[in-house]
């Protein structure tokens, strides 16, 4: 599985959404990605990529695209 697939799957599984919904998805744009969904998403991504994100990055994680950029800091290329 590529990193992109793993990344997408984390969104699909934790937020319970369809693959076509992930493109340009923004935090709090859909009911599923609320603050509770956000914490579940972060813990899932930390598990999948075996990382531990800084609180500031968790706060900055404002969209599907922004998340990709932030994960570069943890040597995860998507």
């Amino acid at each position: 599985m590529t990193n992109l697939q793993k990344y997408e799957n984390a969104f699909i599984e934790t937020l319970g959404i369809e693959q076509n919904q992930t493109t340009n998805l923004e935090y709090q744009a859909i009911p599923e990605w609320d603050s509770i969904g956000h914490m579940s998403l972060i813990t899932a991504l930390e598990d999948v990529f075996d990382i531990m994100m800084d609180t500031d990055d968790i706060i900055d994680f404002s969209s599907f695209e922004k998340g990709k950029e932030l994960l570069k800091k943890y040597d995860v290329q998507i």
Partner: protein
Amino acid sequence: MLDNKVALVTGASRGIGKAIVEVFAKNGAIVYANARKEGDLDDIISENIIPLYFDVTDNSGIKNAFSQIKKEQGRLDILVNNAGIMKDALIGMISGEVMREIFETNVFAVAELIQFASKFMIRQKSGSIINISSLVGVNGNKGQLVYSASKGAVISMTKTAAKELAQYNIRVNSIAPGIIDTDLHSFVGKEHMAERIAGIGMKRLGTPCDVANSCLFLASDLSEYVTGQVIGVDGSALI
């Protein structure tokens, strides 16, 4: 009572923290014991007591500690926020530096540790967080404007975190000790201590073990429906 549970206890070099580590380990837990100074845990390290050296006010130290626990155990069942400092000063003589130091250790570090631990526990959909507050955080005390405020904050954080994390089956409680016989009171003279003991209903100081045993209850499944509570361990002390 804690078989197969993984615990992290901060401020375990002495006093209450050390007793909590020993009681948890005796009850079957794998305990990560935290201290600031390398070597300070040498006398308690054993097969199931693992030392973790970091200052609780250092965020990167906290992060490394949680990474190590994740790597070695993959889970965390119990967090005890015990590390704390007490500095007394009368109103009018409290420096900004002391205010910051007390809040950084007793409040901000606790908030940070709760954030890190809850990520493990959200994943597991279980966990118990125990914050050591103080009787003075409930009642206030002369000469302890900032310390009592910091412990009051610990109690508020406990109640809020309990509400927020209940949906993940994570329990958050606090122990509010009265006067416990540790180095925290080393500066108090004998005469003054006798006066303090006279104000305790049970006419004795508490022991670190008295506090540790209450933590054991909150850490174990015996308290699985208890959250958001502040348990006084004070022998009916009058403060």
